[in-house]
């Protein structure tokens, strides 16, 4: 188990040890979040590696990862806790049949830990042998505002009140990572309690580095072409731009096909790994793809000659 980093450099090294290549800005925000015990708020386009940060963090620190996937209509029973009604009913029937307990004792038993189903937010408040867990609240923008308000309360005090049991407070607060795809603006009150970081698409050099780590089998020349092509696509007006995840997938796919250098036909055949919408694919397929590819190749040749 690794210790919490003590400097920004250590935070950067921590993520690198988990095969995640952060920029300085992310390392700073992560270090601050870990050392001052406030949530880290990550915003950015889909596929730039927001969720991955939490996974890498839990792996490298050896902490448990608790993931709360947000969606519209998410409520307390799926996010915090729920009483196990079927089991409670069975318990009542059994107790009736046996006649072993009086009313008060039965009631106390029914609302005890045994009949409580703990959901991620409640689990995150419980003490853990390995240290406070990593709590990933994924795609917060997909929930509705009432839940956001509730979350605000939980994240500022790290406690939850269950009427039948009382208030449960975390001894050591979990390491909270919140992500948002920015389909709507999260309220300022929540963001104020967090350290903010905008996760951008990586620069070409960094993306090449990422490919070396994540898709080590890819030929170097091919990696350069892949990154160059993806960067060209990101400058275009598409419905969904390819993220880092797509770049890695594409490099894997091309390597599987024993491709050492891109050609227009190969690009057309594998475009589905990069672009996920039919409209986008139709727009790029064919002449546009070969035009982009020619541009990329001539740029690489020019850079090589210089």
């Amino acid at each position, binding site marked *: 188990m690794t210790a919490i980093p003590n*400097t920004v450099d250590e935070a950067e090294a921590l993520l690198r040890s988990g095969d995640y290549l952060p920029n300085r800005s992310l390392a700073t925000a992560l270090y601050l979040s870990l050392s*001052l015990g406030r949530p880290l708020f990550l915003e950015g386009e889909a596929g730039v590696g927001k969720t991955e940060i939490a996974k890498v963090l839990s792996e490298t620190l050896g902490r448990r990862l608790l993931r709360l996937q947000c969606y519209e209509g998410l409520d307390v029973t799926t996010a915090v806790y729920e009483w196990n009604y079927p089991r409670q009913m069975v318990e009542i029937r059994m107790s009736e049949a046996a006649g072993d307990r009086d009313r008060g004792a039965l009631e106390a038993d029914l609302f005890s830990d045994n009949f409580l189903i703990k959901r991620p937010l409640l689990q995150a408040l419980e003490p853990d042998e390995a240290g406070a867990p990593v709590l990933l609240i994924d795609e917060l923008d997909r929930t509705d505002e009432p839940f956001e308000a509730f979350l605000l309360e939980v994240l500022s005090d790290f406690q939850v009140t269950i009427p039948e049991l009382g208030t449960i407070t975390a001894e*050591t607060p979990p390491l909270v990572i919140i992500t948002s795809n920015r389909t709507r603006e999260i309220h300022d009150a929540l963001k104020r309690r967090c350290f903010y970081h*905008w996760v951008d698409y990586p620069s070409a050099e960094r993306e090449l580095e990422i490919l070396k780590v994540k898709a080590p089998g890819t030929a170097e020349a091919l990696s350069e072409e892949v990154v160059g092509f993806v960067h060209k696509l990101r400058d275009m007006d598409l419905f969904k731009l390819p993220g880092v995840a797509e770049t890695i997938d594409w490099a894997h796919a091309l390597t599987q096909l024993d491709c050492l250098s891109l050609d227009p036909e190969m690009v057309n055949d594998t475009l589905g790994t990069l672009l996920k919408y039919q409209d986008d694919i139709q727009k790029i397929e064919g002449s546009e793809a070969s035009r982009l590819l020619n541009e990329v190749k001539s740029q690489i040749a020019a850079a090589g000659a210089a």
Partner: protein
Amino acid sequence: MAKTPIPDVPPEAAGPGGLLSENIMHFGRVLRRAGLPIGPGQVLAALNAVEAVGLGSRVDFYWTLYSVFVNRRDQRDLFDQAFHIFWRNPDILERMMQIMLPDAGGAQTRCRRQADQSVQLPGAPVRALAVCLSARASIASGCRRRSG
């Protein structure tokens, strides 16, 4: 959780009056007047954060303040410009602010007179910020209170 020791602050920054913390506070106020929703809570958080990270490098200092003061994507440019002007020479930005965001009682004439001076202010970022601020100032229509 292990707390990092308070870093060695350069003597001119620490000073007897804690010049650095004062400057961070002023920077927060400047950003607030430029339209970022920054309250005393965030200024305190910024002080804590700078203390935790230390003053080893300007890059880290930048990203430390960024992670506290910025919380929307569209605030990044404003922060960037304000940072580079303020932490080179806080006075310039302060003067800019007075020109572009006059207080409610501020005479229009003074505003106009100072606007002429703004032409002499150097640097492209200053002008970019001025454009940004004048747009905001027209929205605010002079009903802001002056802080300072």
